[in-house]
């Protein structure tokens, strides 16, 4: 698992790469939270476009970040979910807590 963090206009984007299971989530969480606690971003975007596999530990990772950023009234946006990950997200009902961004715009707008 590999993590890349970008900061821009109060938006912190964490780009995840690799399989996301409990083992990987444990390691990612620490790294994401270290930066998030310092930056206190208005929006924490989690980009899953580089995640080929995810189990419910990924949902736990999202929910934990929703809880964290709510400390400063931030919100979590989730992008880049493949159909498989989207199924997992829908099963979990996280859509009411984090905004699941559709990739349609990107796909259509060339």
């Amino acid at each position: 698992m590999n993590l890349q963090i970008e900061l821009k206009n109060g938006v912190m984007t964490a780009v995840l790469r690799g399989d996301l299971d409990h083992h990987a989530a444990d390691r990612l969480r620490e790294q994401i939270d270290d930066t998030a606690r310092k930056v206190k971003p208005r929006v924490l975007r989690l980009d899953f476009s580089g995640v080929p596999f995810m189990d419910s530990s990924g949902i736990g990772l999202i929910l934990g970040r929703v809880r964290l950023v709510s400390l400063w009234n931030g919100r979590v946006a989730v992008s880049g979910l493949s159909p498989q990950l989207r199924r997992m997200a829908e099963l979990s009902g996280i859509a009411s807590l984090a905004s699941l961004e559709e990739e349609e715009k990107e796909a259509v707008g060339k």
Partner: protein
Amino acid sequence: MKQAVNKMELNFPSRSVNESFARGAVSAFVLGLDPLVTELNDLKTAVSEAVTNAIVHGYRDTIGTVYISAKIFADNRVVVKVRDRGCGIADIEKAMEPLYTTGGEERAGLGFAVMQSFCDRVRVSSAPGRGTTVTLTKQFTARENGE
């Protein structure tokens, strides 16, 4: 129940690095069925949930051994058992309720829900102090080219 056409048994210590090993091994085992990508991914996901539970809950504050067995039947049905000799589950029905977790803030309480959604059948047998066995059954699509 008919005899399996292929089977395997596997065990490893309950270290989280072995979550991906367990998925990979089960994947390699069913690859001979020439599975659909989505079906393979469903089984990998369910195995990942069950193995994670053995590691995180079954052997919560200790390292124990996780046992996996898998069988393929002639009709392309796959049965995977994930077993631990950990703490066991007192109330299985409650444990299987979506969102129920004893794992703290970072667990979603969705492991069993995911197993049920991604497999055809999930059976849990458990006794406090003795451990837990989760049996996952998934029907794979018959492919012409399968061996």
